[in-house]
């Protein structure tokens, strides 16, 4: 699966790919999330917002293809519609279905976000690593609104 580091508005964001054991681990973590039905998706904004996970396509772009969950389970769905994106940030994970549906889950301790941040360093510049680490260090409260 492809992971976009949500940092920029004008420039393209850094993107890296999870393969093999990393992909399996990400699928396992996503599958273990507990939804919070009464929680609405945060609005997001400018600056670091977390990570966006999408199925990797064969041509390397991030707008098509399958999750390729392998042994970890079935392709993820949301109310019967395939999930096209997970947004991970600020203690929440927002799954978006192909039909526009949204499911919000908690990411306690921002563990999934931190796990992704550790893997993102291979795609980031020193400055970008500092931005991500700085945001994770400054906003410790799990389940809070997305960082600004």
């Amino acid at each position, binding site marked *: 699966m492809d992971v976009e580091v*949500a940092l920029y*508005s*004008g420039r393209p964001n850094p993107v890296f790919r999870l393969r093999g054991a990393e992909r399996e681990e990400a699928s396992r973590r996503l599958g273990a999330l507990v939804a919070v039905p009464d929680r609405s998706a945060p609005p997001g904004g400018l600056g670091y917002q977390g990570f966006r996970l999408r199925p990797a396509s064969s041509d390397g772009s991030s707008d098509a293809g399958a999750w390729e969950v392998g042994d970890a389970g079935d392709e993820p769905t949301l109310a019967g519609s395939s999930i096209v994106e997970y947004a991970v940030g600020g203690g929440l994970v927002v799954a*978006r279905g192909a039909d526009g549906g949204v499911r919000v889950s908690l990411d306690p301790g921002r563990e999934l976000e931190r796990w992704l941040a550790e893997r993102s360093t291979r795609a980031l510049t020193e400055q970008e690593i500092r931005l991500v680490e700085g945001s994770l260090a400054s906003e410790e409260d799990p389940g809070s609104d997305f960082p600004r």
Partner: protein
Amino acid sequence: MLRITADVFSGRQNPVWTVGEERTARNTLRALSEGSELLTEDAPARAGVGFRGLLVESLSDEAAPDLRLGSTTYLPVGREARGPRAAELAERLIGLLDRVDTSLDTEEGVSLPEPLRPFLTTQLTTATEEGSRSGASIQEGGQETSESFTAAATCYYDVTPFNPGFWNDDQNTRLHNNCYNYASNWRNNTFAQPGRGCGNQYTALTCAEVGRGALCDGMHRRYDCFPDSEWPRHLVALVIWPNTDFHWYRLQSEGYWAHKPGSTAARNVDNSNRVINNPETCDRGPYTQFCGYFYGCHTQRQRIR
């Protein structure tokens, strides 16, 4: 700008033409809006072979409120036509092929029937005769979607309604259009970079360099007027995350500003979730440098890449 596809072939590439003149495009969309009962979101599944209909795509969001059906709409003809006026509307769309500002978008190496207009008209007549048993009522409608305002003593700029669905509803659109696409009101899926379209992209993430790139694409600084022929002349604002990134806002007809942070959804609120009444003072997160205001225009937005 409108892109029209005649859905007539099954194996070979369908004819596609682009209407470049904005007023012609608006008039066409208004005519479609007045016959909205004749339109569908997509080609009917059981349309079969022959002339099935015309797909009309708008490349900018000011036209979408006219359509009320999103940025893409389909006019079925023949057996699947939703009323007798469908053929008349189809003829009008085919007639645009004769306009000097219309260009045929044919891939290299693909041949189309020549001349194209008589061919399509004949196909339409055949399909209409075959489908003459069917019919539907027609409803009138339509509305103006833009206004012009005076800026300083002499300049005019144009504003259009906030239309986030045009940018957000489709995942592919959301991912591949950024703040510069939004400010330019040009959804061409290029994640546009100031200056890239004119061959001279910014070389540093500073107000001076990104502004230079936008001017190279054809923007003007505020109070450097554009003529009416450059409609729509949007008022936009550039801000900078020093040495890191750029961001743009566009003024909407509701009086607030809207923006599209990168691959995320277009919105009219800032980082504090407040409606943006002033891009100079709103919560912009790390985009701390306010560079100033610019006018976009039709020539500029067609150039962005």
